[in-house]
């Protein structure tokens, strides 16, 4: 659905590339997460993919359409929820939705809600009910809470039935209950319509739900794959064992074909084995047992907190 090859962006007068040669693919219907710390290049990438920013180099297509020569086709197919709400505060929720539906050519202009076609009125009602803002949709956006604004933006972005929905840190500034319900709604939408979801976030727990994660830092891809694969790649799980009778333990480890390193204590990588199994198979009395099993979060923090070159 989305193909990105060697994308580079250097802002004018910038000293270094904001996006520095990243490549990835997103399949149809996939839930894809672009994960990285603040300033990693997430918003730059999403701005390029939604055609509001031209890259310095590289290429990208969405559903086979080139982003730069067929921008109009791409715009028709994608929806975006920006990092900062992009609602018109002077209008009501419904008026914001109406403007969007007309801009995307889904419905024709009419000066009032009652004069819009029946399909439009039904759709607004359905989507607003689905997201739980059915009653407030005719109120001025000014009176909405942060969570309601996000919901309104989701309703709006779904009006033209996008094939890909981009969400740029959609939960920033939301309280935990709003955050949780937002994920619930997105999941519903995805199941009901098969929409491809492209999420940027700096929260690992949000990305963990994704089909695939691309971790970027400093404009470069650091890790890319399913959450499990990334965990296997990034997280180094092992047990450290030692015995008073080291030679016997060494012989036994070799006999058991357990990979190990060190001259004692020995480091035994788990490689998917359970700690318990490994320990039970060893009969030499152990004097030291240490397990090393960082969470994905620890691994992620290790990546993003390492000093910049």
């Amino acid at each position: 659905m989305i193909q990105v090859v060697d994308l580079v962006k250097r802002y004018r007068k910038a000293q270094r590339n904001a996006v520095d040669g990243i490549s990835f693919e997103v399949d149809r219907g996939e839930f894809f997460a672009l994960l990285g710390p603040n300033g990693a290049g997430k918003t730059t990438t999403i701005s390029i993919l939604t055609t509001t920013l031209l890259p310095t180099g590289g290429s990208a297509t969405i559903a086979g359409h080139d982003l730069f020569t067929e921008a109009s086709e791409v715009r028709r197919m994608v929806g975006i929820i920006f990092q900062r709400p992009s609602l018109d505060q002077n209008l009501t929720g419904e008026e914001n939705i109406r403007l969007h539906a007309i801009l995307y050519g889904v419905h024709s202009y009419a000066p009032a809600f009652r004069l819009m076609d029946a399909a439009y009125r039904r759709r607004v009602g359905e989507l607003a009910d689905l997201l739980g803002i059915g009653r407030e949709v005719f109120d001025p956006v000014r009176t909405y809470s942060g969570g309601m604004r996000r919901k309104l933006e989701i309703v709006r972005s779904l009006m033209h039935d996008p094939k890909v929905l981009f969400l740029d840190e959609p939960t920033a500034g939301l309280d935990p209950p709003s955050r949780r319900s937002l994920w619930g709604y997105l999941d519903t939408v995805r199941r009901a319509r098969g929409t491809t979801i492209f999420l940027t976030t700096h929260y690992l727990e949000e990305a963990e739900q994704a089909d695939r994660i691309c971790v970027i830092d400093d404009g470069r891809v650091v890790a890319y794959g399913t959450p499990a694969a990334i965990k296997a790649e990034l997280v180094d799980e092992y047990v450290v064992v030692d015995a008073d009778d080291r030679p016997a333990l060494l012989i036994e480890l070799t006999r058991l074909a357990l990979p190990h390193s060190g001259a004692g204590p020995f480091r035994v990588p788990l490689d998917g084995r359970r700690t318990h199994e490994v320990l039970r198979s060893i009969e030499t009395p152990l004097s030291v047992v240490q397990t090393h099993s960082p969470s994905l979060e620890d691994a992620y923090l290790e990546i993003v907190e390492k000093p910049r070159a």
Partner: protein
Amino acid sequence: MHEVSAILAIAHRDFVKLLRDRARLVSDFAFPLIIIGVLGTSLQAGFGTPGGFNLLTFVFTGVLGQTVWQSAALGVISLIADREQDFSQEMFVSPISRYSIIFGKIIGESLVALPQALAILLFGFLIGVPLSPAVLLALLPVAFVVAIFGGAFGVLVLSNLKSQQSANQIFPFVMLPQFFLAGMFNPIENLPWFLDILSRLAPMRYAIDLVRDVYYAGHPEPVRVALLDAPTNLAIIAAMFGLFMLAGTTLFVRSERNR
């Protein structure tokens, strides 16, 4: 059809915004009323009819043209404020032509300028500016043309600006000199050559002159007041409009995407 619908929707939004913004409604009306009421009547009282024509109607027509033209220009520049509130992103990711977005904005801001034109006409009528029904009717479409022209000028200014703050800073330099160069309340027939060149370059001059063409056609003065005839002014306005739209939109879109 889709593009027309989109243009209407963008224009509609601007008009709705005006109706909901009381402060802007009041301030929009205050300035022209002060100029005509104070300046026009005091000039008339102090100088009478030195150029052979009534100064009150001269200032009145000047203010009518200037207000409508400037209101639309300023309104279009509010696209910058939209950008700062991140609303313009919503329009710029949509699949309609960039020209449609800009044109919709110009139409919207021109609609916003029209109630101002009406208020000025009403106020002029109250303080004794001669206004026949025929002239009144003719001035409305003229006001709309002037507004659209002002909007296009706004696009050109907008395309060279980065923020609302820079817009506020540059506006006195772009607008204020035009008050004088365009002959809003001062005759510009006998300017020194360098001011004459600047005056001929000032777009507002043709907007005001077109208003005077129409007004003085209905209420002739002993001497000719407008500088050029209406068809010539319209032709110049059309040419400048095309130029501003093309250059302004191209530059604006480029600066948005090529950051």
